[in-house]
């Protein structure tokens, strides 16, 4: 099956790398709105607000791009993957809650690099369960493993440098275990991602289901920790004036997550996840340039930030240059065939979808009336939350904010166009 004549011919590896980097930009930017939340709210509540924002956006963006008819057809075609999508959402919710404990007990400096090891966990599962990197040779292995390790190392340096100013007290062992646990859970979450994509599922359908597992688990955990659903509702009501900010962060998160899913589809989790984990750089850029968080940092601290950033960029460049060779692609194909045989999927069709040529994608989506309702409700929720919202009084550098907003929108436009021209978002 071949792409139609007006399709772009960019390689899937390059497309996946662009998606991984765009994911990093948007996942990093997602942290910015939460900085405007007034003090006095628990991190757990802010996290819950973000998840609710992602729930709204995860329904609307796929509906806008592909239409509900496509999403339901995709789900009907591979109903077994519903289990994995829900499972991935639950893994994310538990992991994210663990990160809150980790930051509380050992601070960001230790916690962040520990849970950033999720890329190495994902790389291991990709190798073990989906034959990623098999047959890639020493050169391929060193580029990917070296790159992923550099990104984790860079994260460690950055986190150390940026959190030296704060002094977070005790309970170190618990915090370290929580951070490592979060890394294992986040890394394991990529098993369902990869399974879905080598089965020919569209990332837009996957994230739509994922969000049910995520929201259900977060609300359940919230109810357990806050003493029942009535307390959760009361806390959310109290937080109403600030909920717009985590919702906005959740919206940015969804865009980043979609790009991360497309990266996992086109270059695998071993390569895609470390690239999107460079999001720390963008979070840092917002903190340093827009919110002037590190103005009091010593020259040695600034040097550490520069060194950590360069190590991280070097890791990303190394992975970007690690195209899978022919022998590795044979192994990818075997992993795909396993899914087709096990679940009775049409191997030819799945092969075409994995190669970015979904036959369904050529047909314009049939629009339904309820899609307009979904859009209207989603926009209405954001407008309602935006009216009367309050924010922390922070000094913001407007010129830098404009630069970073442009720097965030550009990859969206570029990558969105590339995905459309090469794959029609398939």
């Amino acid at each position, binding site marked *: 099956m071949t792409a139609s004549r007006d399709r772009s011919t960019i390689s899937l590896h390059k497309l996946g790398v662009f998606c991984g980097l765009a994911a990093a930009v948007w996942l990093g930017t997602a942290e910015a709105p939460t900085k405007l939340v007034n003090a006095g709210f628990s991190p757990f509540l802010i996290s819950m607000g973000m998840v609710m924002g992602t729930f709204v956006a995860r329904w609307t963006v796929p509906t806008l791009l592909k239409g509900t008819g496509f999403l339901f057809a995709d789900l009907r075609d591979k*109903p*077994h993957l519903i*289990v*994995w999508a829900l*499972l*991935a959402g*639950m*893994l994310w919710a*538990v*992991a994210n*809650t*663990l990160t809150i*404990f980790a930051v509380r007990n050992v601070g960001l400096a230790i916690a962040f690099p520990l849970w950033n090891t999720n890329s190495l966990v994902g790389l291991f*599962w990709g190798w073990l*369960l989906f034959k990623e990197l098999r047959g890639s040779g020493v050169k391929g292995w060193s580029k990917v493993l070296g790159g992923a390790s550099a990104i984790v190392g860079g994260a460690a340096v950055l986190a150390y440098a940026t959190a030296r100013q704060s002094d977070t007290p005790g309970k170190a062992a*618990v915090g370290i*275990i*929580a951070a490592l*646990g979060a890394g*294992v*859970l986040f890394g*394991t*979450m990529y*098993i*369902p991602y990869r*399974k879905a994509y080598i089965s020919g599922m569209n990332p837009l359908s996957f994230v739509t289901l994922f969000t049910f597992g995520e929201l259900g688990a977060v609300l359940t*955990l919230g109810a357990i*920790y806050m003493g029942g659903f009535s307390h959760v509702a009361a806390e959310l009501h109290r937080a109403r004036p600030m909920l717009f900010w985590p919702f906005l962060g959740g919206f940015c998160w969804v865009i980043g997550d979609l790009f991360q899913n497309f990266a996992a589809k086109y270059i695998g989790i071993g390569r895609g996840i470390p690239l999107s984990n460079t999001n720390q750089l963008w979070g840092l850029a917002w903190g340093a340039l827009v919110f002037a968080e590190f103005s009091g940092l010593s020259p040695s601290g600034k040097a550490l930030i520069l060194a950590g950033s360069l190590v991280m960029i070097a890791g990303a460049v190394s992975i970007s240059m690690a195209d899978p060779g022919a022998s590795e692609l044979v192994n990818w194909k075997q992993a795909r065939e396993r899914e087709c045989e*096990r*679940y*009775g999927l049409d191997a030819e069709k799945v092969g075409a979808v994995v190669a970015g040529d979904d036959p369904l994608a050529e047909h314009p989506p049939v629009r339904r009336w309820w899609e307009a309702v979904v859009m209207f409700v989603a926009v209405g929720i954001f407008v309602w939350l935006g009216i009367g919202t309050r924010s922390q009084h922070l000094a913001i550098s407007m010129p830098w904010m404009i630069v970073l907003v442009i720097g965030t929108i550009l990859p969206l436009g570029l990558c969105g166009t590339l995905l459309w021209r090469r794959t029609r978002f398939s």
Partner: protein
Amino acid sequence: MKRSRLVSILTDAHLWVPVGVLILGIILLMSLR
């Protein structure tokens, strides 16, 4: 869902690895309360 598909899901290692990790994660979370 067809019985054969259910069996395929339940005997898939790709299911039990994440389920096992999720259970361990929940146990860890509960022990941190």
